[in-house]
């Protein structure tokens, strides 16, 4: 658990260092008044200090709550959901809203353990339907038609 905590702390430090580096390129003072680089610089110091404290705590093994990592099954579900969402994102405008929504639902609920044929068919369609009602009908938002061209 210390490894993960330390790594996270290092990430924080990295963010701070990145901000510091970029902030230094901006003018600190403009006509004797703080300029655009002023606050980002101090913020980066704040991040670095906090990050150092986090890393120190992690190295000394002083974490208040041990991290509970999910089971293998859990990790798989999280990955499936994120992965499916990423693919949906990429294909949203090509395949269109309806197919993307339905496909996403199908993939994820199957991964989560749904095996009933009825649910596997109804849930994706119902989900796409509900979303259509909310966004296209109620809010009047144009949704990508994709392969259905002009829905």
């Amino acid at each position, binding site marked *: 658990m210390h490894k*993960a*905590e330390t790594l996270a702390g290092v990430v*924080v430090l990295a*963010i701070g260092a990145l*901000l510091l580096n*970029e902030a230094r390129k*901006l003018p600190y003072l*403009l006509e*004797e*008044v*703080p*300029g*655009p680089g002023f*606050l*980002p610089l101090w*913020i*980066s110091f*704040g*991040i670095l200090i*906090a990050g150092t*404290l*986090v890393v120190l*705590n992690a190295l000394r093994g002083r*974490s*208040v*709550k041990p*991290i*509970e990592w*999910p*089971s293998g*099954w*859990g*990790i798989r*579900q*999280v990955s499936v*959901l*994120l992965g499916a*969402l*990423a693919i*949906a*994102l990429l294909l*949203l405008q090509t395949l269109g809203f309806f197919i993307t*929504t339905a496909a*996403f*639902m199908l993939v*994820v*609920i199957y991964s*989560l353990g*749904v095996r009933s044929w009825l*649910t596997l068919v109804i*849930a994706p369609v119902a*989900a796409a339907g*509900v*979303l259509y009602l*909310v*966004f296209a009908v109620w*809010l*009047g*938002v144009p*949704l990508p038609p994709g392969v259905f061209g002009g829905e």
Partner: protein
Amino acid sequence: MDLITNLGIGFSVAFAPINLLFVTAGVIIGTLIGALPGIGPVSGLSILIPLAFGMEPTAAMILMCGVYYGCMYGGTITSVLLNVPGESASLMTCLDGYAMAQQGRAGPALTIAAIGSFVAGTFSIVLLTVLSPPLADAALSFGPPEYFALMLLGLSAISGLTGDSKAKGYAMCFIGLGMATVGLDPIGGIPRFTFGNLELMDGIGFLPIAVGMFGLGTVLAMVDNKTEMKIMNTSLREMVISRKDMSDSAWPIARGTVIGFVIGVLPGAGATIASFLSYALEKRLSKTPERFGTGMIEGVASPESANNASAVGSMIPLLTLGIPGSTTTAVMLGVLTLFSLQPGPLLFTKNPEFVWGLIASMYIGNFMLLVLNIAFVPAFVAVLRVPYRILAPLIAIFCMVGVFSVNNSIQDLWIMLAFGAIGYLANRMSYPLAPLVLGLVLGGYLEVSLRQSIKMSQGDLTVFFTRPIAGTIMVIAIVIILWPLLSRMLGRSGRDRSVASESA
């Protein structure tokens, strides 16, 4: 009296059919969100942001507020029936509420929770009505130094007082502030950290971040474990409570209301802390403290009143000062900024229909919730039977379509996805999200007040301390920041209360 006129305007706005529709929708959705374990008001509001975007600002705020205090009612349902808190402010209710349910007294528990919530909510709204105008007036004399000090107080309170690790809290706060600096510099107009990306000129985008972190992040937390839930049956007849129950609960409700309201008003402390403290107080004041946890109705009445009172209380700093009193109100502030509505004293003078319409609709909403939570509990329980396997992906895709519908931007979706993963990891590793959100939302205002203050004082940094109001607030903020050091020096063993800051 001015107050009556204002309330009159408010009620005429609140009773407009569209606003009535939205307050009804808001409280129902809020109750459902509160009841569903794993989703709290912060996640629920974040998921709804894309919807709010398509609505008129007053209606949107009425909806969101309805969801907020609705959650405080709804969280009770699963606490009592399942021993699972619907959201963290209902945690204390599990103790005695579930015990009562096991004794066949689920009905009275739910009923007293609804009554307590209604009393606390309504009383707090009255206080909101009465206190806001003078507070807003006083705030009109606030200048940039006062605002800077207030924001510093809010940020330090959220970072230093909630969550397990203060270092992590501050780290998240500073990161949020850093993220707020992306985009055009508010005073000079120079692009910062945009790396040539046109979409970043407006800033990273509160909407995809909020929906990602709180909406998607919550969904990921839902799917990573296999917990099933068994719901106890409740029949409507059992919802009647005895006179003894009422009289036993009277003082706890009163005390819970006061504690909840005061804590709600304080920046940084929210419903969760309010419910903890009021429960602890009841236990201490009781003649039979050892029976707490076995089904004492006081143990339900008090925290339930406190969490509702604090929800309303946290609206006060938001509306009068523009400083959020809790994470949920921080999200609301983010949304109001999207609408180009600046909460604060000017809101009362420039948009009175908005403010008073909102306040009036809170009275209406609370009343609706009283009725809903006593008469329609079985309906809500039925909705809880929808398995997570269906609900989780539904929410995820809802978030995605929602974010896309706002700007038609695939980049927004990537940001949402990234922050979903980040939010999930942050939760697992005890990095509190509240300070990040607050930093992100307040960052812009903070910078403007800082730079304006220094410009006003022509480089003199003591301006923050020489002005009386600013000075007082700055001192309090500094005490909060240095508190861990101070308490260690004073020899106290820092007993870290692991308070869930997410749904505060």
